[in-house]
Protein backbone atom coordinates (compact mmCIF):
# COMPACT_ATOMS: atom_id res chain seq x y z
CA UNK A 1 0.00 0.00 0.00
CA UNK A 2 1.45 3.35 -1.04
CA UNK A 3 0.70 6.76 0.44
CA UNK A 4 -1.86 7.68 -2.20
CA UNK A 5 -3.65 4.44 -2.96
CA UNK A 6 -4.45 1.02 -1.62
CA UNK A 7 -2.27 -0.43 -4.35
CA UNK A 8 1.34 -1.44 -4.09
CA UNK A 9 2.25 -1.41 -7.77
CA UNK A 10 1.64 0.66 -10.90
CA UNK A 11 -1.36 -1.32 -12.08
CA UNK A 12 -3.26 -1.31 -8.80
CA UNK A 13 -2.53 2.37 -8.23
CA UNK A 14 -3.88 3.25 -11.68
CA UNK A 15 -6.97 1.10 -11.25
CA UNK A 16 -8.77 3.95 -9.43
CA UNK A 17 -8.97 5.71 -12.81
CA UNK A 18 -10.23 2.96 -15.13
CA UNK A 19 -10.55 5.09 -18.29
CA UNK A 20 -7.05 6.49 -17.98
CA UNK A 21 -5.66 3.09 -16.94
CA UNK A 22 -7.19 1.41 -19.98
CA UNK A 23 -5.73 3.96 -22.38
CA UNK A 24 -2.35 3.95 -20.69
CA UNK A 25 -2.19 0.14 -20.77
CA UNK A 26 -3.00 0.11 -24.48
CA UNK A 27 -0.31 2.72 -25.14
CA UNK A 28 2.26 0.92 -23.01
CA UNK A 29 1.53 -2.41 -24.71
CA UNK A 30 1.87 -0.82 -28.15
CA UNK A 31 5.48 0.15 -27.37
CA UNK A 32 6.50 -3.50 -27.21
CA UNK A 33 4.90 -4.68 -30.44
CA UNK A 34 5.65 -1.85 -32.88
CA UNK A 35 7.99 -2.55 -35.83
CA UNK A 36 10.35 0.43 -35.60
CA UNK A 37 12.61 -0.38 -32.64
CA UNK A 38 13.24 -3.86 -31.18
CA UNK A 39 11.57 -4.44 -27.83
CA UNK A 40 14.86 -5.75 -26.39
CA UNK A 41 16.50 -2.39 -27.06
CA UNK A 42 13.60 -0.51 -25.49
CA UNK A 43 13.94 -2.71 -22.43
CA UNK A 44 17.66 -2.01 -21.95
CA UNK A 45 16.95 1.72 -22.34
CA UNK A 46 14.12 1.48 -19.78
CA UNK A 47 16.39 -0.37 -17.37
CA UNK A 48 19.14 2.19 -17.86
CA UNK A 49 16.68 4.93 -16.92
CA UNK A 50 15.78 2.89 -13.82
CA UNK A 51 19.47 2.75 -12.90
CA UNK A 52 19.98 6.46 -13.44
CA UNK A 53 16.89 7.28 -11.34
CA UNK A 54 17.93 4.66 -8.75
CA UNK A 55 14.49 3.07 -8.91
CA UNK A 56 14.53 -0.46 -7.49
CA UNK A 57 10.89 -0.98 -8.50
CA UNK A 58 11.53 -0.20 -12.14
CA UNK A 59 14.81 -2.12 -12.13
CA UNK A 60 12.99 -5.20 -10.89
CA UNK A 61 10.21 -4.83 -13.47
CA UNK A 62 10.58 -6.81 -16.71
CA UNK A 63 8.58 -5.77 -19.76
CA UNK A 64 10.63 -7.81 -22.23
CA UNK A 65 13.05 -10.68 -21.69
CA UNK A 66 16.73 -9.81 -22.10
CA UNK A 67 19.79 -11.91 -21.27
CA UNK A 68 20.73 -11.70 -17.60
CA UNK A 69 24.29 -10.82 -18.54
CA UNK A 70 23.04 -7.75 -20.36
CA UNK A 71 21.30 -6.35 -17.32
CA UNK A 72 24.30 -7.21 -15.16
CA UNK A 73 26.62 -5.26 -17.44
CA UNK A 74 24.25 -2.40 -18.26
CA UNK A 75 26.14 0.23 -16.29
CA UNK A 76 29.14 -0.50 -18.55
CA UNK A 77 27.20 -0.55 -21.82
CA UNK A 78 29.64 1.83 -23.51
CA UNK A 79 32.58 -0.59 -23.35
CA UNK A 80 31.12 -4.05 -22.67
CA UNK A 81 31.04 -6.53 -25.53
CA UNK A 82 27.48 -7.64 -24.69
CA UNK A 83 26.13 -4.49 -26.35
CA UNK A 84 25.79 -3.94 -30.10
CA UNK A 85 26.47 -0.67 -31.90
CA UNK A 86 22.71 -0.17 -32.28
CA UNK A 87 22.16 -0.64 -28.54
CA UNK A 88 25.02 1.73 -27.76
CA UNK A 89 23.52 4.42 -30.00
CA UNK A 90 20.18 4.15 -28.20
CA UNK A 91 21.77 4.00 -24.75
CA UNK A 92 23.95 7.04 -25.47
CA UNK A 93 20.80 8.95 -26.43
CA UNK A 94 18.99 7.64 -23.34
CA UNK A 95 21.71 8.78 -20.94
CA UNK A 96 21.71 12.37 -22.19
CA UNK A 97 17.91 12.34 -22.32
CA UNK A 98 17.84 11.36 -18.65
CA UNK A 99 20.32 14.01 -17.55
CA UNK A 100 19.17 16.98 -19.65
CA UNK A 101 16.87 16.64 -22.63
CA UNK A 102 17.95 20.07 -23.84
CA UNK A 103 21.53 18.74 -24.16
CA UNK A 104 20.62 16.16 -26.81
CA UNK A 105 22.56 16.76 -30.00
CA UNK A 106 21.97 16.18 -33.69
CA UNK A 107 24.87 13.68 -33.54
CA UNK A 108 23.18 11.57 -30.86
CA UNK A 109 19.96 11.58 -32.90
CA UNK A 110 21.87 10.66 -36.06
CA UNK A 111 23.41 7.73 -34.22
CA UNK A 112 19.96 6.28 -33.55
CA UNK A 113 18.67 7.11 -37.03
CA UNK A 114 21.68 5.40 -38.58
CA UNK A 115 20.32 2.12 -37.28
CA UNK A 116 16.56 2.66 -37.13
CA UNK A 117 15.68 5.65 -39.31
CA UNK A 118 13.51 8.64 -38.44
CA UNK A 119 10.66 6.42 -37.21
CA UNK A 120 13.04 4.58 -34.89
CA UNK A 121 14.17 7.87 -33.36
CA UNK A 122 10.57 8.99 -32.87
CA UNK A 123 9.75 5.63 -31.30
CA UNK A 124 12.69 5.94 -28.93
CA UNK A 125 11.80 9.43 -27.71
CA UNK A 126 8.14 8.48 -27.28
CA UNK A 127 9.11 5.42 -25.26
CA UNK A 128 11.69 7.29 -23.17
CA UNK A 129 9.04 9.86 -22.27
CA UNK A 130 6.74 7.13 -21.00
CA UNK A 131 9.50 5.17 -19.22
CA UNK A 132 10.93 8.29 -17.60
CA UNK A 133 7.49 9.43 -16.47
CA UNK A 134 6.51 6.10 -14.98
CA UNK A 135 9.89 5.71 -13.28
CA UNK A 136 9.46 9.11 -11.67
CA UNK A 137 5.94 8.13 -10.57
CA UNK A 138 7.17 4.86 -9.02
CA UNK A 139 9.51 6.97 -6.91
CA UNK A 140 6.98 9.70 -6.15
CA UNK A 141 4.28 7.18 -5.27
CA UNK A 142 6.85 5.41 -3.09
CA UNK A 143 5.88 2.04 -4.47
CA UNK A 144 7.52 -0.75 -2.49
CA UNK A 145 10.20 -2.82 -4.16
CA UNK A 146 10.38 -6.54 -3.57
CA UNK A 147 12.91 -7.43 -0.91
CA UNK A 148 16.06 -5.95 -2.32
CA UNK A 149 18.62 -8.54 -3.34
CA UNK A 150 22.19 -7.30 -2.92
CA UNK A 151 22.62 -7.50 -6.69
CA UNK A 152 19.83 -4.95 -7.15
CA UNK A 153 21.50 -2.56 -4.76
CA UNK A 154 24.75 -3.05 -6.64
CA UNK A 155 23.10 -2.37 -10.01
CA UNK A 156 21.61 0.91 -8.78
CA UNK A 157 24.71 2.13 -7.01
Amino acid sequence: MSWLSNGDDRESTLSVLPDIAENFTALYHSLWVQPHLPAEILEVCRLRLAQLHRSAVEWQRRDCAIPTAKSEHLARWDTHSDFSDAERACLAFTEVYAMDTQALTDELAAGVKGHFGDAGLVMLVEALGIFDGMTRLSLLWQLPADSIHPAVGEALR
Partner: protein
Amino acid sequence: MTGSLRATNPNPSSGNMIRDSALGLVPETLDHYMGLNRKIWESGLLGPAAIEIARLRNARKVNCVFCKSVRYDIARADGLSEDKVAMIQDDFRDSALSQREKLILAFTDQFLNDPGGLTDALKAELLAQFSQTELVHLSMAVAHFSGFSRCAVSLGGMPDSLPVMEISLPS
Protein backbone atom coordinates in the same frame (compact mmCIF):
# COMPACT_ATOMS: atom_id res chain seq x y z
CA MET B 1 16.69 27.06 -32.19
CA THR B 2 17.66 23.85 -30.34
CA GLY B 3 19.42 21.84 -33.04
CA SER B 4 17.93 20.97 -36.39
CA LEU B 5 14.63 19.18 -36.84
CA ARG B 6 15.75 15.59 -36.28
CA ALA B 7 12.80 13.69 -37.77
CA THR B 8 10.08 14.74 -40.17
CA ASN B 9 6.84 13.27 -41.44
CA PRO B 10 7.17 13.13 -45.25
CA ASN B 11 3.41 12.89 -45.80
CA PRO B 12 1.65 15.47 -43.62
CA SER B 13 -1.90 15.25 -44.88
CA SER B 14 -4.32 15.03 -41.95
CA GLY B 15 -4.53 18.71 -41.07
CA ASN B 16 -3.97 17.70 -37.44
CA MET B 17 -0.79 19.30 -36.09
CA ILE B 18 0.17 16.25 -34.04
CA ARG B 19 -0.61 13.62 -36.65
CA ASP B 20 1.25 15.69 -39.26
CA SER B 21 4.31 16.01 -37.03
CA ALA B 22 7.09 13.43 -36.79
CA LEU B 23 4.89 11.53 -34.33
CA GLY B 24 2.90 10.48 -37.38
CA LEU B 25 5.84 8.26 -38.37
CA VAL B 26 4.78 5.82 -35.64
CA PRO B 27 1.05 5.29 -36.19
CA GLU B 28 1.14 2.13 -34.07
CA THR B 29 1.37 4.24 -30.91
CA LEU B 30 -0.11 7.55 -32.00
CA ASP B 31 -3.80 6.72 -31.60
CA HIS B 32 -3.14 5.37 -28.10
CA TYR B 33 -1.09 8.46 -27.27
CA MET B 34 -3.86 10.79 -28.43
CA GLY B 35 -6.49 8.69 -26.69
CA LEU B 36 -4.63 8.89 -23.39
CA ASN B 37 -4.24 12.65 -23.79
CA ARG B 38 -7.99 13.05 -24.25
CA LYS B 39 -8.81 10.85 -21.26
CA ILE B 40 -6.42 12.81 -19.04
CA TRP B 41 -8.24 16.03 -19.91
CA GLU B 42 -11.77 14.69 -19.87
CA SER B 43 -12.20 11.72 -17.58
CA GLY B 44 -10.41 12.46 -14.36
CA LEU B 45 -11.47 14.30 -11.26
CA LEU B 46 -9.40 17.44 -11.75
CA GLY B 47 -10.82 20.12 -14.02
CA PRO B 48 -9.11 21.51 -17.14
CA ALA B 49 -7.83 24.67 -15.39
CA ALA B 50 -6.07 22.59 -12.74
CA ILE B 51 -4.59 20.26 -15.37
CA GLU B 52 -3.43 23.24 -17.45
CA ILE B 53 -1.59 24.69 -14.46
CA ALA B 54 0.40 21.46 -14.14
CA ARG B 55 0.99 21.28 -17.90
CA LEU B 56 2.31 24.83 -18.09
CA ARG B 57 4.58 24.34 -15.06
CA ASN B 58 6.07 21.28 -16.72
CA ALA B 59 6.41 23.15 -20.02
CA ARG B 60 8.35 25.93 -18.35
CA LYS B 61 10.59 23.60 -16.37
CA VAL B 62 11.39 21.37 -19.37
CA ASN B 63 11.57 24.49 -21.55
CA CYS B 64 9.42 23.20 -24.37
CA VAL B 65 8.68 26.34 -26.39
CA PHE B 66 5.74 24.77 -28.20
CA CYS B 67 4.17 23.57 -24.94
CA LYS B 68 4.72 26.94 -23.25
CA SER B 69 2.98 28.81 -26.05
CA VAL B 70 -0.17 26.69 -26.07
CA ARG B 71 -3.34 27.38 -24.08
CA TYR B 72 -6.10 24.80 -24.15
CA ASP B 73 -9.46 26.41 -24.82
CA ILE B 74 -11.17 24.15 -22.27
CA ALA B 75 -8.81 25.40 -19.56
CA ARG B 76 -9.59 29.01 -20.36
CA ALA B 77 -13.29 28.19 -20.35
CA ASP B 78 -12.73 26.61 -16.93
CA GLY B 79 -11.38 29.92 -15.61
CA LEU B 80 -7.63 29.88 -16.22
CA SER B 81 -6.70 33.49 -17.01
CA GLU B 82 -3.38 34.85 -18.31
CA ASP B 83 -3.01 36.67 -15.00
CA LYS B 84 -3.02 33.29 -13.29
CA VAL B 85 -0.69 31.78 -15.90
CA ALA B 86 1.77 34.59 -15.15
CA MET B 87 1.98 33.35 -11.56
CA ILE B 88 3.26 29.92 -12.62
CA GLN B 89 6.84 30.90 -11.81
CA ASP B 90 9.50 29.75 -9.35
CA ASP B 91 8.11 32.13 -6.71
CA PHE B 92 4.59 30.69 -6.97
CA ARG B 93 4.44 30.05 -3.21
CA ASP B 94 4.31 33.84 -2.66
CA SER B 95 1.70 34.38 -5.36
CA ALA B 96 -2.07 34.91 -5.15
CA LEU B 97 -2.73 31.38 -6.42
CA SER B 98 -4.99 29.25 -4.24
CA GLN B 99 -3.53 26.64 -1.90
CA ARG B 100 -4.68 23.85 -4.21
CA GLU B 101 -3.07 25.54 -7.20
CA LYS B 102 0.18 26.03 -5.31
CA LEU B 103 0.17 22.37 -4.35
CA ILE B 104 -0.35 21.34 -7.97
CA LEU B 105 2.81 23.28 -8.79
CA ALA B 106 4.69 21.83 -5.81
CA PHE B 107 3.71 18.30 -6.87
CA THR B 108 4.82 18.98 -10.44
CA ASP B 109 8.14 20.36 -9.23
CA GLN B 110 8.65 17.32 -7.01
CA PHE B 111 8.05 15.02 -9.98
CA LEU B 112 10.51 16.96 -12.13
CA ASN B 113 13.21 17.81 -9.60
CA ASP B 114 13.38 15.01 -7.08
CA PRO B 115 10.68 12.34 -7.39
CA GLY B 116 12.35 10.14 -4.80
CA GLY B 117 12.60 12.94 -2.23
CA LEU B 118 8.96 13.62 -1.35
CA THR B 119 8.81 14.80 2.24
CA ASP B 120 6.21 13.81 4.82
CA ALA B 121 5.28 17.49 5.12
CA LEU B 122 4.41 17.90 1.44
CA LYS B 123 2.66 14.52 1.44
CA ALA B 124 0.46 15.67 4.32
CA GLU B 125 -0.33 18.97 2.60
CA LEU B 126 -1.32 17.15 -0.58
CA LEU B 127 -3.53 14.66 1.23
CA ALA B 128 -5.23 17.49 3.13
CA GLN B 129 -6.23 19.23 -0.10
CA PHE B 130 -6.74 16.40 -2.61
CA SER B 131 -8.31 12.96 -2.61
CA GLN B 132 -6.02 10.05 -3.38
CA THR B 133 -7.77 9.55 -6.72
CA GLU B 134 -7.22 13.21 -7.63
CA LEU B 135 -3.52 12.76 -6.89
CA VAL B 136 -3.32 9.71 -9.15
CA HIS B 137 -5.00 11.78 -11.85
CA LEU B 138 -2.54 14.64 -11.32
CA SER B 139 0.31 12.13 -11.40
CA MET B 140 -0.69 10.71 -14.76
CA ALA B 141 -1.26 14.19 -16.19
CA VAL B 142 2.19 15.38 -15.15
CA ALA B 143 3.90 12.19 -16.38
CA HIS B 144 2.10 12.46 -19.73
CA PHE B 145 2.94 16.13 -20.20
CA SER B 146 6.54 15.56 -19.18
CA GLY B 147 6.93 12.79 -21.73
CA PHE B 148 5.26 14.81 -24.47
CA SER B 149 7.31 17.95 -23.90
CA ARG B 150 10.58 15.99 -23.67
CA CYS B 151 9.60 14.27 -26.90
CA ALA B 152 9.16 17.64 -28.61
CA VAL B 153 12.50 18.91 -27.27
CA SER B 154 14.29 15.68 -28.24
CA LEU B 155 13.14 15.90 -31.85
CA GLY B 156 14.83 19.31 -32.21
CA GLY B 157 13.95 22.28 -34.36
CA MET B 158 12.43 24.15 -31.44
CA PRO B 159 12.18 27.92 -32.11
CA ASP B 160 13.45 30.35 -29.49
CA SER B 161 9.95 31.70 -28.86
CA LEU B 162 6.38 31.50 -30.10
CA PRO B 163 3.31 33.66 -29.47
CA VAL B 164 0.59 32.34 -27.19
CA MET B 165 -1.91 30.30 -29.19
CA GLU B 166 -5.20 28.78 -28.12
CA ILE B 167 -5.94 25.25 -29.25
CA SER B 168 -8.61 22.61 -28.75
CA LEU B 169 -7.94 19.04 -27.71
CA PRO B 170 -6.52 17.29 -30.78
CA SER B 171 -8.74 14.50 -32.11
